[in-house]
């Protein structure tokens, strides 16, 4: 029973971190059809923002929940204005450019802060489940992931910006003929996607080693989740995270964490083979 609870918590943690690391990517890819290969570096910048501000005496909650998303959101807007904006509609060029950007960011951060692993202590402490210990931070991450998903629903479905964003995503030309400047919508969308990614980086800083190259550990999983999820930003991210997170953690529990990752990759490959358009290409079509 205790073991089941711990395994359950691990599964929850796996799902939550997949939601966190892929939601920003899903927003940018789903709304703008931009493949941002610097996604992992956005995560890394969010993590660094939290680590550095915490080490300079800033409250860790403020660092994770405010500084990281705001900082990376601004970086995202800067990147969109200087790089992405001139490459709209050129998928391969965007991939190349963002890949170059990711190398640049890794190099820059290494140059400034050195190629060392930093960290911050995990807040909230732990609790005892029978003979096992777990930390309270895991349920907190799950809660934030859930709130983020709900937040995206609320923004897309009930706000003026959400309506404009959905319309622009469906028919950008028509939206502009109705007086909406698609340029600004794209800028805002990219900024929001980057901010969500920054938030994820900040939140994951206490539970992962923060180093300039940490992005590469996340970016593959994030892409697998987004591609596996398919066209709908929300239903796709949620369902793919649920599926892959469970598979990954159960696989890790039954074998070893290394095999857990292998099983995740095999499962993702099979899924894409069976459902080339992802889960929401077949199920929950037309959902957000």
């Amino acid at each position, binding site marked *: 029973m205790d073991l089941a609870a711990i395994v359950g918590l691990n599964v929850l943690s796996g799902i939550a971190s997949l939601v966190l690391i892929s939601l920003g990517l899903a927003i940018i890819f789903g709304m703008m059809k931009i493949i941002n290969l610097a996604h992992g570096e956005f995560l890394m910048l969010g993590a660094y923002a939290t680590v550095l501000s915490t080490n300079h005496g800033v409250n860790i909650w403020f660092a994770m929940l405010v500084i990281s998303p705001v900082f990376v959101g601004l970086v995202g807007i800067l990147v969109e204005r200087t790089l992405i904006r001139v490459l709209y509609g050129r998928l391969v060029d965007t991939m190349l450019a963002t890949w170059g950007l990711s190398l640049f960011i890794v190099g820059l951060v290494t140059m400034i802060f050195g190629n060392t692993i930093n960290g911050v202590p995990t807040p909230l402490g732990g609790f005892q489940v029978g003979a096992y210990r777990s930390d309270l931070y895991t349920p907190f991450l799950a809660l934030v992931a859930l709130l983020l998903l709900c937040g995206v629903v609320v923004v897309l479905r009930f706000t003026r910006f959400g309506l*404009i964003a*959905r319309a622009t995503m*469906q028919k950008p030309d028509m*939206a*502009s003929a*109705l*007086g909406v400047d*698609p340029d600004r919508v794209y800028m805002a969308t990219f900024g929001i996607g980057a901010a969500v990614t920054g938030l994820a980086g900040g939140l994951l800083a206490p539970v992962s080693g923060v180093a300039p190259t940490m992005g590469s550990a996340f970016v593959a999983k994030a892409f697998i989740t987004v591609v596996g999820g398919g066209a709908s930003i929300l239903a796709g991210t949620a369902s793919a995270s649920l599926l892959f997170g469970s598979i990954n953690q159960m696989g890790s529990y039954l074998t070893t964490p290394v095999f857990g990752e292998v099983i995740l990759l095999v499962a993702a490959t099979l899924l894409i083979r069976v459902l080339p358009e992802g889960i929401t290409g077949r199920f929950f079509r*037309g959902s957000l």
Partner: protein
Amino acid sequence: MLDVAALQAAYGRVPVLMGIDFQLKAGEFLGILGHNGMGKTTLMRTLMGFIPPTAGGVTFLDHDITDLKPHARARLGLGYVPQGREIFPALSVRDNLRMGCMAGGRQKGSGEDRGIIDETLELFPRLTRLLDRQGGALSGGEQQLLALARCLCTRPKLILLDEPTEGIQPSIIEEIAETLQGLRAKTGVSMILVEQNLDFIAALSSRVLVIQKGRITGELRPDQLEDPEVVAELVGMAA
């Protein structure tokens, strides 16, 4: 209110508009008649700002709009009902109309939007019971009404209407014609209508320009459209 001077446009290196000239007075309904491939839709897309002109200029309400982007033109009062209707398929009919209210980029309360939508719906009673349907689930005719209603929500001063009768059942074509005539009487809005349907263009236009191979080649009075010989000669089109 609209002055088009020596307007040229091209798709890549293929020229489509070879120099279009015409003027439109406020309150006028201008028809543009021509075959497929003569540049009708290109003209509309160029007027709306989707295709950059390669030469010539467009003046709208004393603004030079030649280099303006579509959203800026929309905010000046150009309304666009495109060929193929371009309804937002995954938005409800109500949300499609709300998008129409975005023009002007003005900050308004949702109450004001609702007022505009209610007013527009009075002109299109058929849409009222469809408000919560997805735009993509409507029939072609209903989508055409919605596209027109959405355009009216932008409060346009000039409507660009591109082949509204294409693939639409006759009852709705009549409904659209009546709605537009009522609108002209009530608001004094202007319109440029691009069409192949002779009856529709004759019923609505105060004068008709003929477009051939990217040039305006002639001008007709609407009543002349009933004479098959004149039409055949000018348009190269069987009435």
